[in-house]
């Protein structure tokens, strides 16, 4: 490189400074891109988003949240289930006909793919079970709540 610089600045230091500046710019660009994607890149809407801004009828969306305890009911036909998906703020009733993933249980996370019905019910074409970040051996589920809390506290 035939850049003119004072002889006291070593070439490798010049390269280092240039690289640091380039890295900072690239990092900023990446963060800006990620920030711009913050709502578009989400895989699903949570119930409070659906309730605050309902999607147009017949628009395919994904709804993600927790299956409320005690809300899961099977219709008389045996294949249709109804349950409520909540996020602690809002609740959306969901109906689905078909085979559910084995991890689909009350009190656990779910992502439902489908459309909002005019009555405010979400009609799902497909259910995905969402696994949370907890990994717990089978033996621990039979413990009392207090025991489980103690063990979890020990591992944390």
């Amino acid at each position, binding site marked *: 490189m035939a850049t003119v610089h004072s002889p006291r600045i070593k070439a490798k230091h010049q390269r280092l400074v240039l690289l640091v500046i380039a890295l900072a710019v690239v990092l900023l660009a990446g963060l800006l891109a990620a920030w711009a994607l913050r709502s578009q890149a*989400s895989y699903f809407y949570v119930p409070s988003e659906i309730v605050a801004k309902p999607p147009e009828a017949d628009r395919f969306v994904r709804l993600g949240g927790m299956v409320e305890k005690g809300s899961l009911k099977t219709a008389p036909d045996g294949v249709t289930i109804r349950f409520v998906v909540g996020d602690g703020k809002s609740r959306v009733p969901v109906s689905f006909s078909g085979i559910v993933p084995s991890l689909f249980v009350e009190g656990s996370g779910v992502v439902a793919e489908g459309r909002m019905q005019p009555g405010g019910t979400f009609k799902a074409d497909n259910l995905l079970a969402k696994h949370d970040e907890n990994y717990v051996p089978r033996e621990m589920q039979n413990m009392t709540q207090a025991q489980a809390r103690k063990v979890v506290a020990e591992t944390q």
Partner: protein
Amino acid sequence: MHGFANPARFLRLARWLTPLCLLPGIAIAAVALAYGLIWAPADRLMGDTVRILFLHVPAAWLGMAGWMTIAGASVTELVWRHPLAAIAARAAAVPGAVFTALCLATGSIWGRPTWGTWWVWDGRLTSMLVLLFLYFGYIALSDVARRDGGNGRVAAIFGIVGAINVPIINRSVVWWNSLHQPPSITMGKSAIDAAFLWPLLAAAFGFTLIFAGVVLMRMRAILAEAQAEARLRRKAFAADEAAEAFGGFA
């Protein structure tokens, strides 16, 4: 660091460092995987599917660590012009790509019974797939530089710019709603029960040693290849000179 600018010195060190990484690495990973596959308890929800964790998580970690190796070596190459840096970056690319592919494959196999789908385009899975494609691009670029006698600077810049994807992979489950679960192990905390956590950490350590050993092996191979090429070139040059000298008399 520049003590190792002399390849002969590096080769002497690498010769005994390679088995020192590989052998304990294979032993630790094998024991951790065997424990995970046979003796670890089944998960409360996932059942036996949880056992894939011991391969999936180390593979994911090394896929990302491999790219950070490329990026670090590329910075060293560009700033300090260290002669071994480009070789280290090239050596880390293929093992990094293999671990990334392994992570995607095991994750997909785990996702089918757990989530109910092989693949979704959520933030974590998509950014990890992008990492695999970045590896392909890097391997192609550095190969071209080697074959056509370029200086590999383009590959080094690609390696540094591509590193932006690594924090995106890491944060993808925090920034965006995703089907993939949020991080289980964060600074000093773990949502993974000790029965799974210790074999997981052991497997990660073992695979990391294997990764280091493979990178050292590949660096030695690349150096040997360059040496052989230089020797052939010298011979061809000498033969040309000789032919010219004799041609003058004919």
